């Protein structure tokens, strides 16, 4: 375990610059990590956090700058040299051997052995000792797969610390944890702090900062924009540092007059779905765009999916167009609901098929009118119609070409057009502009607004606050499976969104 005396500087990184393919992503960044202190590293996606951290762990080499560990200085590190110097990374995704025991996992890759034979007893005793020192109450003989996520993470940290660790880097460690587990992790981090371990804690969640961090470092667009004391710094200072001037630059769409006599198309009342979300109240009326905003894991996707018949709610009321919801995608589509999944490649696009075929795919379900024979002419004319309407950038023979040849933005347009072509009156869009370039993004937002003008009800689930600001009439914010706030038209702003979602 880290032997460093208090306040000793463990890591000092200065003037780090890094470019990829001619584009500079880090413009001279500094960072310090001290024994017995937690420094939180904040920043939006693309700010440079993971690049910086990968340079520290040796996965990348910086173009310039210096890295000082203890009393040695380097211009670059490799994964092996970083590990030798005691730098330990804990990634978001848990990578352990589920079928092996806790003790074996702690010593994964460095089993205690003599002459090629594993010394099981000694290993178990060592594991027990390590766990006791960290005051972790887990049986070293338990199978990893029997542990809960939070416990597995703790074991992973125990493994990292069990052999001459100087610096622990935690990447969004609470992303997959529930409330109790988060508290236990924080207590564990407190103990590590007392033992003098230096830690870098990467997070999105502003709420956690005060509880767990001593120092804060904020990156924006590859620059270091703020350092300070986590206990003293103001939340809005942090948001402003992370988001910058964009706070005011992102415009709101024009206010929409809603016909108050209409019934909601999606009505959720105290809706819960066992593990994913609880007590959600949500109404979506025809002709409006409602955004569900929250971080990954907040429950926004599951709530949206419930409206499409993909999540079976465990309690509460759910009505789609005044009736009980469909129990399957087929049922939902028959009722005029369309769903655009978040993972385009895995769940939405038929990459081996042409764009034209991708567009008309819902008509193969059989629930939109019984067809037996394919109507190629109709396929082509449908594609033409939407290619024009959505300005899909594709070559003249585009309808026949595989959709994989299109850019992300154009693919997304085709997939969106899929539901427009099917005449959906209710659209559920999950992360609609993920992986889409800026230009196509604006065009897609314009289409969404137009659809709402024509009376379509649109529910968007997104973790992109700019998207909410630019396209939604109103927003519902979720965190940890619960609704935290409902924002009316004039209440929607980046600050309000990040406040309510806990980061």
């Amino acid at each position: 375990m880290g032997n460093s005396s208090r306040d000793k500087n463990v890591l000092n990184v200065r003037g780090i610059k890094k470019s990829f393919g001619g584009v500079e992503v880090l413009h001279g960044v500094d960072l310090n990590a001290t024994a017995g202190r937690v420094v939180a590293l904040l920043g939006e996606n693309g700010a440079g956090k993971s690049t910086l951290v990968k340079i520290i762990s040796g996965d990348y080499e910086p173009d310039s700058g210096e890295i000082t560990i203890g009393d040695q200085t380097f211009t670059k590190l490799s994964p092996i040299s970083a590990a030798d110097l005691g730098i330990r990374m804990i990634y978001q995704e848990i990578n352990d051997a589920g079928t092996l025991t806790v003790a074996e996992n702690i010593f994964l890759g460095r089993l205690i052995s003599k002459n090629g034979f594993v010394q099981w007893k000694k290993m178990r005793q060592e594991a027990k000792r390590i766990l006791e020192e960290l005051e972790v109450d887990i049986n070293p003989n338990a199978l990893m797969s029997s542990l809960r996520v939070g416990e597995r993470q703790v074991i992973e940290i125990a493994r990292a610390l069990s052999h001459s660790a100087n610096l622990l880097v935690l990447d969004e460690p609470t992303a997959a944890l529930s409330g109790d587990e988060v508290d236990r992790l924080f207590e564990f981090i407190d103990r590590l702090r007392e033992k003098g371990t230096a830690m870098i804690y990467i997070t999105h969640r502003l709420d956690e900062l005060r509880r767990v961090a001593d120092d804060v470092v904020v990156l924006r667009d590859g620059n270091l924009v703020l350092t300070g004391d986590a206990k003293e710094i103001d939340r809005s200072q942090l948001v402003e540092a992370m988001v910058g001037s964009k706070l005011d630059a992102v415009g709101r769409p024009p206010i929409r007059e809603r016909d108050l006599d209409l019934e909601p198309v999606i009505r959720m009342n105290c809706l819960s779905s066992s593990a994913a979300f609880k007590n959600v109240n949500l109404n979506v009326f025809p002709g409006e765009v409602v955004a569900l905003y929250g971080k990954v894991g907040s429950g926004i996707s599951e709530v949206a999916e419930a409206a499409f018949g993909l999540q079976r709610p465990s309690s509460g009321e759910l009505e789609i167009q005044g009736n009980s919801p469909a129990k399957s995608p087929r049922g939902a589509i028959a009722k005029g609901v369309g769903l655009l999944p978040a993972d385009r490649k895995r769940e939405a696009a038929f990459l081996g098929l042409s764009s034209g075929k991708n567009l008309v795919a819902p008509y193969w379900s059989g629930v939109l009118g019984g067809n037996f024979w394919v109507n190629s002419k109709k396929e082509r004319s449908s594609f033409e119609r939407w290619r024009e309407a959505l300005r899909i950038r594709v070559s003249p023979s585009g309808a026949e070409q595989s959709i994989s040849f299109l850019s992300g933005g154009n693919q997304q347009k085709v997939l969106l057009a899929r539901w427009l072509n099917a005449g959906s009156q209710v659209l559920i869009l999950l992360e609609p502009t993920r992986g889409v370039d800026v230009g196509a993004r604006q065009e897609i937002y314009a289409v969404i607004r137009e659809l709402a003008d024509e009376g379509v009800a649109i529910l968007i689930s997104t973790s992109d606050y700019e998207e909410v600001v630019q396209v939604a009439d109103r927003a519902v914010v979720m965190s940890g499976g619960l609704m935290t706030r409902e924002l009316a038209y004039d209440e929607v702003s980046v600050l309000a969104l990040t406040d309510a979602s806990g980061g």
Partner: protein
Amino acid sequence: MNIKDQGVVPAVKDEVSVAPPSTGNGPRRQLPEAFALVVVLGALVIFFTVTSPVFFTTNNMLNMLTSIAVIGIMAVPGTILLVAGQVDLSVASAAAMCGMVTATLAESLGLGMGIFVGLAVGLLVGIINGFFVTVIGVNSLIVTLAGLATFFGIGQLIGDGQTVLVQGFRDLGTSRPFLNIPMPVIIFVLALIAGFIVLKYTVFGRQVYAIGANPVAARLVGIPSRRVIFIAFALSGLAASLAGLILVSQLGAASPNNARGYELLVVTAIVLGGASLSGGRGTIIGTFLGLMIIQVLSTGLTLLNVQSFWQSVATGILLLIAVSSDRLRERLSPLG
């Protein structure tokens, strides 16, 4: 995201590595595939024509088509299944078993009844396969592998392991109703045409391609994946029984060893013809070319008096080449 694919389990779904889309060079790959097959077939035909005087004769052509007809009839629904990401390895054993059923019943209940029940058993085989794959959710490779062993065993049980002679059942397999073309060839060609039309011009065909290309997305656009795959397996079982009956008619007898090993040739032909083991790709024309390549190679080698054992080696090597080129194609393609 919690969308789980509650549809059917594809036969062989490997991890396809992600390659970034190319700079939109268009369908440059679609034409060359069938083209390459035609070239290979052409080269083989030329080679054997030159080395054997008997090769390029009408008689030989008809013989080759007749030989491949039985396998070919099973390869049509086999193609549909593979495009949907499934495989049916039980076809050969089912064919033999159905032949045994027909032959045995023909003795006691008459030929007509025997044929009817034989075909019904084939349909039942398909339904059973379909049930285990779509309802129970077992991988089709495993289900039909189990079927392969089981149906072979049943075929042996039916006749006590003996061959059963059948009288008066020569027409199906040996008659030449028109233009001197053998009946099996006519049936084969009809099956090819039907398969071609289904895959290319029907919504069912589109559903099959979609399910193979992306089972999750297929479910999310409302395609009834389980139903489609179930139907495909039923068709495969029926085709197997038809093939088995043709064999019995050709040989004049049913044996549990009929069609032994044909499933290998069926899969080889389909993959050689351009179908991908992970589904979403494949055509009837490709399968036909694959079948012809196999048959030309086999017949050619025979005419050159090459030992028949070499033909097994050749088949094995062909399958390896077919699957390897499928994998290479996937890795080099811009498909994500």
